[in-house]
């Protein structure tokens, strides 16, 4: 150890961190991926059992998140009473915008179902020293703390998103002016970029969670998350003003939350051809940004674990 002044009991922890799995026997067959998949399915099953134990609570959570969605839909229905579009000549009319909103809902519900409860728990693990047990398990720590709990009730918003998307697509296909069906390729690309969006949001969350190792406690994790992702919830054209362009640049290239919803929603809301000349580079950038975010957050997370000092005993 390079810092002799540190307490002795930290040493074994650090060793498990750097060389976690070499000594441990492989108990299962079917390869590394199969093992992770089985562990994940066990987590999913446990969470479902847990949710079903408190069924009234589960149903209530579903109802309240659907009510929240209904209020957002209501808000935009009110806005579209006064205007035909969000932003001048942006193409975000009512049908297109509701597709955008459905995309926001898909991505948020996935993040809330799979990652949010775990990230919240993570800062608690740091504070109480419970992370020791996670570090000692013969499995990747980031995997373990990212997927341990699944909040199934958050997926009710995914269903609502499907409903909103279904209605808007139907309306787009049957309207009098410029009606169209999205091609199978659009749908495929849409699914791909929604997955990219979820990955970017997950990375932002892991970065925020990693900071709680240094801060000791990160009570306002959810607040931070909300304030940052708040920028992703609207079409990026609204920032296209002299004052907004720095923000547009910041949230597209540095913290790329703007591509999360904008890229997939844009693919589905218009026919694939013709497209403005900046849309293809933006989609390519979304792929690059996803890769970069995942790698960076992984690096930051592993780096932060090195500063972890157990809080127990």
């Amino acid at each position, binding site marked *: 150890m390079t810092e002799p002044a540190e307490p002795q009991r930290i040493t074994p922890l650090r060793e498990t961190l750097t060389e976690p799995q070499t000594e441990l026997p492989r108990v299962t067959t079917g390869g590394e991926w199969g093992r992770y998949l089985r562990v994940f399915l066990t987590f999913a099953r446990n969470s479902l059992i847990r949710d079903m134990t408190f069924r009234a*609570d589960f149903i*209530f959570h579903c109802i*309240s998140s659907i*009510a*929240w969605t209904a*209020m957002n839909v*209501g*808000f935009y229905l*009110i*806005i579209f*009473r*006064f*205007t*035909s*579009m*969000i*932003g*001048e*000549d*942006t193409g975000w009319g009512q049908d297109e915008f509701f597709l955008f909103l459905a995309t926001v809902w898909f991505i948020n519900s996935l993040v809330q179902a799979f990652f949010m409860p775990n990230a919240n728990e993570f800062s608690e693990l740091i504070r109480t020293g419970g992370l020791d047990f996670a570090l000692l398990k013969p499995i990747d720590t980031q995997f373990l703390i990212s997927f341990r709990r699944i909040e199934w009730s958050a997926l009710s918003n995914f269903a609502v998103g499907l409903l909103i998307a279904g209605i808007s697509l139907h309306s787009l296909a049957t309207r009098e002016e410029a009606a169209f069906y999205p091609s199978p390729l659009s749908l495929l690309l849409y699914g791909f970029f929604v997955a990219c969006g979820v990955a970017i949001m997950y990375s932002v969350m892991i970065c925020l969670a990693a900071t709680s190792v240094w801060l000791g406690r990160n009570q*306002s994790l959810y*607040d*931070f998350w909300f*304030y940052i992702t*708040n*920028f992703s*919830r*609207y*079409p990026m*054209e*609204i*920032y296209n*003003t002299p004052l*907004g362009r720095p*923000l547009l640049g910041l949230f597209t290239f540095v913290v790329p939350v703007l591509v999360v919803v904008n890229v997939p929603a844009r693919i589905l809301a218009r026919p694939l051809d013709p497209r403005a000349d900046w849309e293809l580079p933006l989609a390519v950038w979304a792929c690059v940004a996803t890769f970069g975010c995942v790698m960076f957050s992984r690096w930051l997370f592993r780096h932060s674990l090195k500063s972890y000092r157990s809080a127990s005993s």
Partner: protein
Amino acid sequence: MSLASHLPPIGIGQRLRIWSIIVRTGLSERIAYRGDFALGTLMRFLPIITQIFLWGAIFNAVASDAGAERDDSQRIGGFNFPDMVAYFLLTMIARAFSSMPGLASGIASQVRQGEIKKYLIQPIDLIGFLLLSRISHKLAYYVVATLPFAFVFFLCRGFFVAGFPPPHVFVAFLGSLLMGFLIGFFLEASIGMISFWLLEVNSLLLIFMLFSFFLSGHMFPLTLLPESVASVVNLLPLKYLAYFPAAVFLNKIPEDELATEMLIEAAWLTFFIVACRFMYSRGIRRYSGFGG
């Protein structure tokens, strides 16, 4: 009934001393984490930035629908673009007064866990204690939040096109903020009192918060609602938590209706004070505490 009623009455001097101790304890509780606190306050303005851009885009589209350039003549629900931004900034002030994080759930958990019995045996009134601690928390909040608020309002001064309101409107604005604080307190305390009957009020509270977010005017000015809905929402007390103070400041309440509106607000406040007191006195009769 509470044991406290059998004790000799406390003089006004002692009572003031108790009150000042409660306030001072609350203040020091809050000032302890001032750095985190100031940062949190400043962060709360971030959503305003997106709001400004969103409404800018909406007003641009409204102007272009009408075949005009955007200026201050386009109005949505009686608000032009600068009004709208000023509105959202002012509702932040209103919410700083009327929001009561943790009040109802705190009462509920005290009832559930039996902590409430300490108010039954000590000569301290639960509602009074909670009100005083809330006042001290709010005071601490204003001390820390004044600077970030002043900074943001200074940056956004251009949106207040009508300038500062005349003195009597400003007095009404201050009055509506103060009553907003008290309505927020007694309304949420009443919800907390329900826990004497239903042990679990968190779900009820969540529903209330959802409705309050939508119908208090926190999300958008209530004048944007369709006529039929607006007429019902205007009868509810929720608008005093956000919409009303902002509308008063921006002169959106006609001068001749201002006094009546303030009286209605005072009536709602009285109603919630009585409701809260009544439920508390009924509640502790039902309540039974066990153990030490």
